[in-house]
Structures are given as C-alpha cells and as structure tokens.
C-alpha cells in the first residue's frame, strides 16, 4: 500500500523537477534553494546595515572628524540600520532562510506544500529589498525618521527623507509583509499537513516549534504594521489626518487636523513587540537543538520548552505598551503592562534554566556551533535581565531614550539572535553545502565576536546610567556628562569596528570551504533529526529519494542507556533500538 502511495508522489514530483540552471537555481521552487536565496539576500542587506552602524559609531566615537557624516545622513544611517537588521535581515533569515530549509527536512516532507507560492515569496521579498535600497538614491535620500517611523516627524519637513524616502520605506514594508504572508502560509500549512508518518507535533524538533510559533506571531502581528503603513501613506499623500495632529510646520499650516500620533505608536508596537519574539523564538528553538546535539544529551524538559514557546508567543501580544511608558499613558495602563512584561519573564526564564540544565553533566563538545549556542545563553541572560529593569515603569522613565535601552535591545535581540544565526550556519553548513569549514578559524570568529560584542555593549549600560541620550548626533557641551563618557564612546567605536572586521573571518572561512573545503560526513555531528538522515548528501530535490522517512521517536534520543552509540536517529524503529534491556542482554 505505502509503496504505491510513495510511487505516486514521486510521479507527481517529476513534474516540477528542475531541468535547467535557471529553474534549478534562479526560478527554483525547491525549498532548499529558496532558503539559500533568502539567506544570501538577507546577509547581503545585513552587511549594508553593518556598514551603516560603523558610520554611526565613527561619528559617536570621534565627533566631527569625518566630513561625510552630517546630522541628516546620521539619522538616515540610524533608521536604515535598525529597520534592515530587524525586518530584512533577522525576520527574513530566520523564517525565510532557516524556516524554509528546516521545516520540510526536519518534518520529513519533500517540500513546502505550495512550492510556487514559496518561490513567489522570495521574489516579492527581493522586490521589497530593492525598493528599500532604491530609497538610498532618491532625492533627499532614505528616511531618517528612526526605525519606529513615529509621526508627525516621519513625514514632516525637516526630517531627512521626508519626501521620497519615507514613501519608499512604507511601500517596501507593505511589499515585505505580502512576501512574508505568502511564506508564512506555507510554513504553517507545511508543519500542520506535510509531516511524515510518526512525526507527531510533540516529536518535532524545537527548531520547528520555534519557527512555527514565530510564523503564527508574524501572520497575526504584521497586519498591524501594514495598517499603520497604509494609514501613514494616506496621511502623507492624501493629507488625511489619521495620525497627524493639527500642527504648524516651518511657520506654515500643512492642513492636518486633530490626528493622533499615539494611535500610530499603539499600532506600531502592537506589531513591534511580537516582532521581538518573531526573531527570538526561532533562535530559542534552534539553540535548543544545537545545545542538545553538541552536549549529547536530551533537551531538558521538552514539553515545558514547547509550552514556553507557545506561552511567550501568546503573552507577546499583551505587552506592547511597555515601549510607550513615556507617552503619557494612564498609570493603571502602565501597571498592567509592567505586570504582563514581568510575567513573560517566567516562561523565558524556564527556557534559560532548561538550556543550562541540558548542559549539566552533558558530554559537551565545544565545537563551533556549540560555542555560539553557549555564547547565546550568556548574551541572552544579560540582555534579558536589563529587560526586567526597563519593564518597570519607574525605572524605565529615567532610562528611556538613553544608551541603556540601546545596550539592552542590542544584547537581547541583536547579538543574541545573531550568535544563533552563526551557530546555525556553522551547524547546518555541512548539510547545505556538503563541505566542512575550518574549525580553528570558526573558533577565532566566535571568540572575537563574543568578547567584542561585550566590549561594545557593556559600557553602553554605563553611558545610559550617566544619562547619555540615544539618537543624538553629538553631545555638545552637556554639563552633566563627564569627559570620560566621550573616552568610553571612542572605546566602543573601536570595539565595534573590530567586531565588524572580524566578520571577514566568517566569510573567508565559508568561501574557502565552498572552494577547497573537505567533503563532510553526511551526519558529522551524529545528530538525530531527520535532515541528517537524507539518502543524498546534500539532499537532492524531493529530499528523500523513493521513500519518505517514518519517525518512531522524538528528536532527542542522545546517550540512551544500553545503546552502543550515543544517538538514535528519529527514523530508527522502536524495536531495533535502544532495545533497552534486550539489547543489553545481547552483549
């Protein structure tokens, strides 16, 4: 019976088997190729955003030394750096990149359920990136409104890029959301419908869980950004007054009446806060798998980990106004949002404890992906703890809009997810390319990045306590700031440039690996999940050859007592291993 069904599937498969270079690598409907396309595009724009941050740091560390940085383009650098990093790099890379690669392979399916829609998703994403990049070159340049794009200043004269820049930014976001929705429908439906036999929801690797819940968050939260982008476009082009209050600009009356900038903030953060978890949840999932695999131990508290992901996802919708404590809200609202914010720390802390407990008495292999995964635990704890400070209204008020906030969110949703991105690339690189990279170079990359980021962000907390405001182009003669604040800024800039340059090691390593790297073993980490059990290495179109895998166990059978090897792949039948007592008696 099953043979016939699988043969049928193969027959169907042949219809869209790629034939030429173009259908194989450009207009590809293969989830693995689309994943790589997403990944390369996201990393490319991410590098631009990295370059922009270097420019900002040059100005902050060595004010007025560089003629090519003026207040206008400084604001443009800030805005584009933030927007690109959050949306076009991290969201696209985790969901479009890793989501695309891992969901079908880890669930044991041949592809996404709607391959054409999946391809379309990438090309529409690319279109959004192109629109975004065009905005650098239009008259007035890209928008300098800050990544939150708060009205009224986002579309008023005096803000850099208030003409073309902001229009292209909003258009690009709208296009991105369309692309994400097409991808998201695929990820959700594939997880729900295309898992192989035996792959019950509670046997799915946590990577898939993280990506799955993050996708649902994205599908429900991105509409808030879409609504606010459309309404702001109307305010800008049709002169409606959704957000724009009665205001005078440069002595003239632009014609707006009584709109509410706070309304925009509500909509924006209704998207903006879940967005933090859209980035964080896939990182949580992936890091759990990396820790378990490289510690040769089952993940501690699997069911709790799943439920923590779900709980964090649900709670992330009722904390948004903690970004708005200084907007003059009713103190009872502040109390409510501070409470929900602190509650979200509970499932998050459960996850952190479980990661640490997974390492406890594990057989830890400090390979490159593991270093990045453990590094993540450090940076995430530090970033998470400062979140507890900022989540409380009374502590947030003086710290709001200082470098303390910058340090907090960079640690928690900048450095931490990026460490996971690197860990994940090092982990799955052999599967994606079939090649190994240089382990020593990878370790150097880790240590320089990890220590370097601490050198950047730890001092920023002190700057924040001292009262250094964020977003300022220059401090001028601010009396309450000691001179040493400037020395610290210079040191931070040097560290930032160092970390940015360190990334060259990563690219050199990867390019060298593609070009001359040794062939990798099909399962170099002795991992249990399905993607390492494919018949071809790297997996070919359709992933599984003639027969789909059948899953008999969860993804965390590491170091099972009574079994020779320290891992049992998910597709090993229950009667063959661990054979528990039977197996033991044989020997």
């Amino acid at each position, binding site marked *: 019976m099953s043979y016939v069904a699988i043969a049928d599937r193969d027959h169907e498969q042949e219809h869209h088997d790629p034939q030429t270079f173009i259908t194989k690598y450009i207009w590809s409907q293969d989830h693995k190729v689309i994943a790589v396309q997403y990944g390369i595009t996201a990393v490319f724009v991410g590098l631009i955003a990295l370059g922009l941050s270097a420019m900002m740091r040059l100005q902050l560390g060595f004010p007025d030394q560089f003629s090519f940085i003026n207040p206008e383009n400084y604001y443009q650098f800030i805005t584009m750096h933030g927007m690109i990093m959050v949306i076009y790099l991290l969201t696209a890379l985790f969901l479009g990149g890793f989501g695309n690669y891992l969901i079908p392979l880890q669930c044991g399916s041949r592809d996404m359920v709607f391959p054409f829609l999946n391809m379309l998703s990438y090309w529409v994403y690319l279109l959004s990136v192109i629109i975004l990049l065009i905005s650098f070159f239009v008259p007035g340049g890209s928008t300098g409104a800050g990544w939150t794009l708060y009205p009224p200043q986002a579309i008023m004269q005096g803000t850099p890029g208030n003409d073309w820049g902001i229009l292209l930014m909003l258009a690009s976001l709208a296009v991105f959301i369309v692309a994400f929705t097409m991808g*998201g*429908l695929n990820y959700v439906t594939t997880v729900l419908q*295309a898992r192989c036999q*035996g792959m019950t929801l509670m046997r799915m690797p946590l990577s898939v869980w993280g990506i799955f819940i993050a996708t649902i968050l994205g599908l429900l939260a991105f509409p*808030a950004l879409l609504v606010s982008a459309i309404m702001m476009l109307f305010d800008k082009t049709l002169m409606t007054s959704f957000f724009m209050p009665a205001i005078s600009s440069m002595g003239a009356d632009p014609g707006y009446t009584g709109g509410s900038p706070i309304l925009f903030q509500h*909509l924006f953060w209704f998207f903006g806060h879940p967005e933090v978890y859209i980035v964080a949840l896939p990182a949580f999932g992936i890091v759990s798998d990396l820790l378990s695999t490289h510690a040769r131990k089952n993940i501690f508290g699997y069911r709790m980990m799943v439920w923590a992901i779900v709980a964090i996802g649900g709670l992330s919708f009722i904390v948004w106004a903690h970004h708005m404590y200084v907007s003059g809200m009713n103190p009872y609202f502040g109390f409510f949002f501070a409470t929900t914010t602190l509650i979200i720390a509970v499932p998050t802390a459960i996850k952190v404890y479980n990661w640490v407990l997974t390492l406890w008495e594990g057989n830890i292999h400090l390979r490159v992906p593991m270093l990045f995964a453990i590094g993540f635990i450090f940076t995430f704890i530090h970033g998470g703890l400062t979140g507890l400070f900022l989540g409380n209204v009374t502590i947030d008020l003086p710290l709001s809009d200082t470098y303390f906030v910058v340090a907090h969110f960079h640690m928690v949703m900048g450095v931490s997810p990026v460490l996971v991105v690197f860990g994940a690339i090092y982990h799955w690189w052999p599967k994606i390319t079939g090649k190994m990279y240089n382990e020593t170079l990878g370790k150097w990359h880790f240590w320089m990045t990890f220590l370097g980021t601490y050198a950047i962000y730890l001092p920023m907390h002190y700057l924040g306590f001292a009262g250094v405001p964020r977003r300022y182009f220059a401090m001028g003669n601010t009396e309450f700031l000691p001179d040493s604040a400037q020395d610290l800024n210079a040191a931070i800039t040097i560290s930032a440039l160092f970390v940015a340059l360190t990334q060259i090691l990563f690219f050199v390593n990867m390019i060298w690996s593609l070009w001359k790297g040794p062939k990798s073993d099909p399962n170099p980490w002795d991992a249990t999940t399905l993607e390492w059990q494919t018949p071809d290495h790297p997996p070919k179109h359709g992933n599984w050859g003639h027969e789909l895998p059948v899953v008999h166990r969860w993804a965390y059978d590491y170091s099972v007592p009574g079994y020779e090897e320290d891992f049992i792949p998910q597709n090993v039948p229950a009667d063959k291993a661990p054979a528990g007592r039977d197996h033991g008696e044989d020997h």
Partner: protein
Amino acid sequence: MEIGLITLAVILATLLGWLLKQSFNTQPWIAEQVSATAHHGPLGGSSNTRLIALMTLMAVVTSFFALILSAYALRMELGDWVPMTEPQLLWTNTVMLIFASLALQWTRNGAVKGQASRLKPGLIATGVLTAGFIIGQLIAWQQLQAGGQLITNNPSNAFFYFLTGAHAVHIIGGMYVWARATARVMLGTAEGGTIRRSIELCTIYWHFLLLVWLILFGLLLST
C-alpha cells in the same frame, strides 16, 4: 485596541485549544513502532491542505480588519470626529453581496451533489453579483465625492474610504480564484473533484468576506 485584542484572543485561544488536544498527556520521549501505512494524523489530502491554508489566510485578514477597527474606535474618541452619512446605495450593494454568497453556496451544493448543470450558471451569477458589488462601491465613492465628502474632510470619511477600499481589494483577490475556477469549468480543463474543491474554498472565502462586510457596514452605520 480592545477589538484587536479580543479578536486575537479568540484566534489564539482556538490555536491553544487545538495544541492542548494534540500535546496533552503525551510522553514524547517514549519511542513507539509506527507502521509506514498507518494513518497517523498528518498527510491529509490536498483539499485539506488548501483548507488549512485558507483558514490561516482568513485569520490574517481577520487580524488586519480587527486592527483597523481598533484604530477606528481609538480615533473616534478624539474631538474632531464628525460622523459621516453613508450613501443609501450601500444597502443595494450589501444585498448584491448577500446574493453573490447565496449563488455560490447554491453552486457548491450542486458541485457536491454532482449536479454539473449548476456550475456554469451558478459561477456566472456569483461573478456578476460580486462585480456588481464592486462597481456599486465605486459608484458610492463617486456619489460621495460629488457631494463634497472627500477623504480629507474628516477622519470618519478617511476611515470609510480605507475600510471599503481594503474590503474591495480582498474581494478582488477572491475574484482571481473565482476566475480560475470558472475558466476551468468553461473550458472543461479540470476534473470534477478539483473544481468541486476549488468552489468549496471560494464559498468559504465569500461567506467570510460577506461577514466582514456586514460587520463593517453595521459599524459604519452605527457611528
């Protein structure tokens, strides 16, 4: 934001209930023999897959409209809000959209019972009535413009244009799928099962957008 929150709470509660059912009292660490032929839940037919994708899409659209309505409720509280008088034509348009939904339901029932003769007239009636709704909405816009009710007059006008426009865009998206199904019926290029599934999904989407419209229309009338 209450409207948005309540809608999301309902969506998330549905999801949570389903997850609980799937995962409660499971012991994932215990391996068990799975036969390759056993029907173990997933791997449903393609119509099921499409239905789930459609339901997911409808959740996204619900979130989209709920958030606009949240913004509507928040903006309405500010001092400069002047309620707008909706054109009477909207009643006619509403009736047309109701009949479009009914026509599609009739077609779907025919397709399920295997009455192929219903398909062509049913689909054409659906198309005509739905196109009539869209054209009616455009005429309503023109009437408003002619009467000096511009988008810039007041936030209530702006929301009216935004809501009706956004709703129309979603209907036009549905018309694309309707057009594909109709073309298949006319040209006879697809087998009955494919057409039936396609019509079934269209029907769900049409009813959904009718419901969205009735909520929007009720809200516009009452404020």
